[in-house]
């Protein structure tokens, strides 16, 4: 499964990459803000996007909307911090696939990847 990682923090991107690769998936690319995410999505067409919410330039909610406008089947997993409930809700209603809470629980994240891969078939 090709995954696009979107996060403005390089540490988070690194961690996500490690977890994704350890599960046998392939990180197709990394984006550092919403604009970057939209551009990389149309270019790479990944099977799954992990999306941070608060980012400079364009936040995760807007990015979800734009990506869904490009590809209605886009599968986006929101990565949210505590206290961002209204934004997560907006993202889900905007078409995001699921959400997972920060700090990331490795087991849960793997479960999410697993299910995304299964659903992708």
């Amino acid at each position, binding site marked *: 499964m090709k995954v696009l990682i979107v996060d403005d923090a390089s540490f988070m991107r690194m961690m996500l990459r490690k977890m994704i690769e350890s599960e046998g998936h392939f990180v197709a690319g990394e984006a550092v803000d919403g604009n970057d995410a939209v551009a990389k999505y149309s270019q790479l067409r990944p099977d799954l996007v992990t999306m941070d919410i608060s980012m400079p330039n364009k936040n995760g909610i807007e990015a979800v909307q734009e990506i869904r406008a490009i590809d209605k089947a886009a599968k986006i997993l929101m990565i*949210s911090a*505590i206290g961002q409930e209204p934004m*997560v809700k907006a993202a*889900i209603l905007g078409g995001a696939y699921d*959400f997972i809470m920060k700090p990331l629980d490795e087991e849960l994240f793997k479960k999410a990847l697993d299910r995304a891969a299964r659903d992708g078939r």
Partner: protein
Amino acid sequence: MTDMRQYQSHFLDDLGEQLQLMEGEILRLEQEGGTAEGVQSLFRAAHTLKGSSATMGYEKMTKITHAMETILDNVRSEVYPITTEMITLLFQCVDRLKVLEAEIALDSRELSDIDDLVGDMMLLDARRAQEMLVHAEKGEGDKTVISESFPLREDEWEMARRQVEGGLSLYRLYIRLSSECLMKSVRLDVIEKQLRDTAPVIWSELLSRWRDIPPPDGQFVRWLIAAADRKEELEREIRTWFDVDSVEAVPCSLDELHSQSQPPVIVRTDIGGRPESSFRLPPSERVKAQSIRVNVDRLETLMNLVGELVIDQTRIRQVEANLQQKYGSDETVKEMSPVFDHLTRVIGELQDSVMKVRMLPIEQLFSRFPRVVRDLANGLGKKVELMLEGNETELDRNLIEEVGDPLIHLIRNALDHGIETPEARRQAGKPEQGILRISAAHEDNQVVLTVKDDGAGIDADKLLAKAIDKNLFSAEEASQKKENEAIQLIFHPGLSTASEISDISGRGVGMDIVRAGIERINGMIEVETFKGRGTCFRIRLPLTLAIITGLMVDIGGRIYILPMSNVVEIIQMEPKALQSVKGVPVVSLRERIIPVVWLHDSLGYPRTGIKRKQIPIVVIGRAEKRLALAVDGLIGYQEVVIKSLGAYVGNIEGISGATILGDGRVALILEIGGIMKMAGGLT
């Protein structure tokens, strides 16, 4: 600290609304059983009130609403079902809140004690929770908590049927989130979405019940889905979803669903032969119109300004007529005509619109009645069905306020004296449950309200006997009274036919006060009764108090205005056709002898018309009373805007106000009640 007093009036407004809403919902709970939506909306009202009363610093109110909230929360979480006892307590809460409301309105203090009620509620809550726990331990637990009705709509039914025909199986799904789940509401949204990706969802409790407020911790959320998978497959799949603590898929058939989609009727007031009252209010009328709150003063100002315009418009009409007469051929004058026409139309529409702003559906008032009837029927041990008709009929808001008390009095009378006890009704060959029908309708620019019962009717002989007893007139006079005349005695001050005084409709200070109340707002009340079959009171009211249709009459060269709503008939009569009974001039009209009064006498003008061939006579009516007014001429009728005479002049008997006529002259508006009183002195 912020001074909260400035918010007081807002708070009280809201409070009134919320209390009315609560009362309506509790009643609905009682009649229709506990629907999830009803409990939810009641919970929300209690919650709102708790918040606002806490903000305002009203502790007792906060305590009561908190207790209500606790119980309602447990009901909606299905910790325990709603019971009659609970409903009675909830009613008591509303009553106590109303008492507090009155106290707060008076001097911003909560005086009455509420600890007993709050104690009762806490006790009830604890006891019910305990009972349910015991219940659950007996092994009926999980199912009683999680299985409940699915309130399906018609289209959802249809969908379920189609899916089954298409080869899918129906499942009731019960999903509970883990207690560690952090964003419960979003998580449920995701689950809803995932379910919809998995299988057709026919009904979702999340969307129908928990949309505004997330379900409490540990609560199962229910769905009805159609799926091709087996139960185990379905459950296994859902268990992999995030934050799902427990899931159960219960296969169900269409038949099963059918028996469960009936709303649970838990509450029945007729258990153990208790009196029962039921009400019919179409549920579809629950949709509230969007509205904004406007200070009444502003509306009054607007109304006054429109009133001025109406007067100007009448004047313009006259000026136009004069101009036409003088310079009819002039182009400019001709051009003015359509402009005047347009102006007239616009002003007319403006007047209509402003009037409409002041109008409210009478439902506002009607919604109080089911409660009144319920309590009265229970108290009297009678069975009554209340039917309300014409809820949507609109009426000036001032009138709605004014007509409330008289109507409630009529309702009390109907239940107390009209509708018989179940035994008496059975013996009379009638159904045990009496019917009280209250309706409102528009009729020729008036609102007609009727209060009709199918009780015993008014006993004319009893009334007459009582009147003789009280020395209102002699037995001989009484024997000459026709039955309908006798019936009118119920409006006589000091007469009541109930052989025992009850605390419900009192001791003969009833109907005369009702009539006075109705007449104060330019209305009329009539009564019709059929022995053994019931009584019907009919109240006619003007649509508004601010503008009336007036009959302009000439008295001694001056114009006076009589409210058309009081004019019964207009006749022309030769002076010699006037008869005299005991020295009082009368006319005989449709087998009725009506005293004739020259308004000149009351108003202090010399009588002039007497020498003419024909005297115009206006018969005015006030309830059953009729009075013939001899005037000098009839001028016509028009809409007049009532202006008060002002504090300087003050109240004058027989005059209700003044208006400005088209030609700029001021005309006084006569008040019928006062005139009748004056005439009573003269004749």
